[in-house]
């Protein structure tokens, strides 16, 4: 955990108190298998007829199932972006 932001000069000199101790790390939940499943559900729920979307959904699910979570999430996100541009979600 840091209380400040390292300036470029301090980073260069590596003398910043920000680097004095190993700070705690906060885990992001958007790189996990449950999130992958959640994204896959979001895509699937849109019932898109687009072949590209369906292909990306299949590839994403498959990769997440094989443990390649980040790759799977990336494909599912691309599918969502495509859906957003073709079929905007009603706000």
């Amino acid at each position, binding site marked *: 955990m840091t209380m400040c932001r390292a300036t470029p000069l301090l980073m260069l000199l590596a003398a910043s108190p920000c680097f004095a101790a190993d700070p705690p*790390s*906060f885990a992001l*939940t958007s790189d996990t298998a449950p999130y992958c499943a959640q994204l896959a559900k979001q895509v699937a729920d849109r019932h898109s007829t687009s072949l590209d979307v369906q292909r990306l959904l299949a590839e994403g699910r498959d990769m997440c199932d094989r443990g390649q979570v980040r790759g799977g999430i990336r494909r599912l996100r691309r599918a969502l972006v495509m859906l957003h541009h073709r079929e905007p979600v009603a706000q």
Partner: protein
Amino acid sequence: MIRSAGLRFAVIFGIVFALSALALVFFLWLSTANLLDRQVEAAINADAQGLVERWSEGGIPALLLTIQERLGENVDDDAIYEVTDPAQQWVAGNLGSWPASVLNPGVFYELQVTRAGAKSLADVRRYDLPGGFRLLVGRDVRGRVELRRLLTNALFSSMLVIAALGAAGAFVIRKLFRRMVAEVSATADAIAGGDLTPRVRRSGRGDEFDRLAESINTMLERIAKLMDGVRQVSNAIAHDLRTPITRARARLEDAVLHAGSESELRTGVERAVADLDNVTAVFHALMRIAEIEVGARRSAFAEVDLGPMLADLAELYGAVAEEHGLALRLAVPDTLSILGDRDMLQQAVANLLDNAIKFSPDGGVIRLQASRADRQVRISVADEGPGIPEADRPRATERFFRGETARSTPGSGLGLALVQAVAMLHEGNLLLEDARPGLLATIAVPAMLHVGHMNVPSSGPHVAESGTVASPAYR
């Protein structure tokens, strides 16, 4: 090596080069790093502004939906969001818990985050929403960190290149400096060894080294000329003074041995004294020339109006000219000012007039003129005598030089040398030309710039009436 000026210059060059180059590289590094920071901050602020607007439009459900959408479409996989309720419990976002360090809104914090097991850095900012809700928006900056690392590595790598280039440049500078100094040093060594003929070679590029070589060569020319002058003067003194001294001795000896009466003895002694007076006058003239050449009198320079001064001289020498059956004509402006030494200038012109009278044939006309042209004032004396042959003119201003035509007339050969010395004291020169017939001697000196144009009398020249010679003159 430590005492080598070349090495010192080389080191200074190397240091200056390295510092300049490093300053440039560091500036580029800093600018790039700052630009990346600003871009991330701008992205976070824009993102947060959009979210706050959604909150304003649809409250917490709209905000949560938007965050879900943005996370879902975050192909770059760099967005970080978190929303907590008034009880500070997680409501939405991809950050597991609220970082305790992110206390104040409006401040950017740097967090270490773990993304799929890999550690990374993120910039985050807190925004407080109405009703006690808190929003955290951030960006993963691992790309920026990586770029910064690359730049830092490039910075250190460039240091090595800069050091190498600086060292190479320093080596070249040292070689150049040593080559130039070696040339000057070799010339100086040769001259110190007694040979005054070597000169510093010029590269022909017209650069500072060439100008230095030119200055040194000019100095050497001057030294050689002075040495020649000293040698010549020593010889001339030995040669020219031997005759009058020998003559004085002979007169004294003759008076002592053969004088039949006191009056004869007195006459002999008086003749010897006259001879010795001539010797003294020569020494006096030599010392005066030396004094002028040293330039010490320049500190006493003042504005001199040549008009009245030359008129006075014409009046004095007019009488002498008349005695010799000559006419002296004067053509000078009413006022003609220069910065100089009045006594010295008077002496110089007197010398020229004395020579003109001495060498003019009966019935001849001597012209004393002065004028200003451009930035020069020219005082000239023209006679109708035999003049000085062109071949002798360059040497005519040397001490004790006496041309063929002057051998038969009395004089010491110092008159023109003194005139030349006076002209040079005034940063001018003495010009000797053919007056067809006769000699035209001109003293050309710089004019005073603030003095206006002079009134040259249109009524024609006037002739000096009478007067006496103010001081001795020599040719």
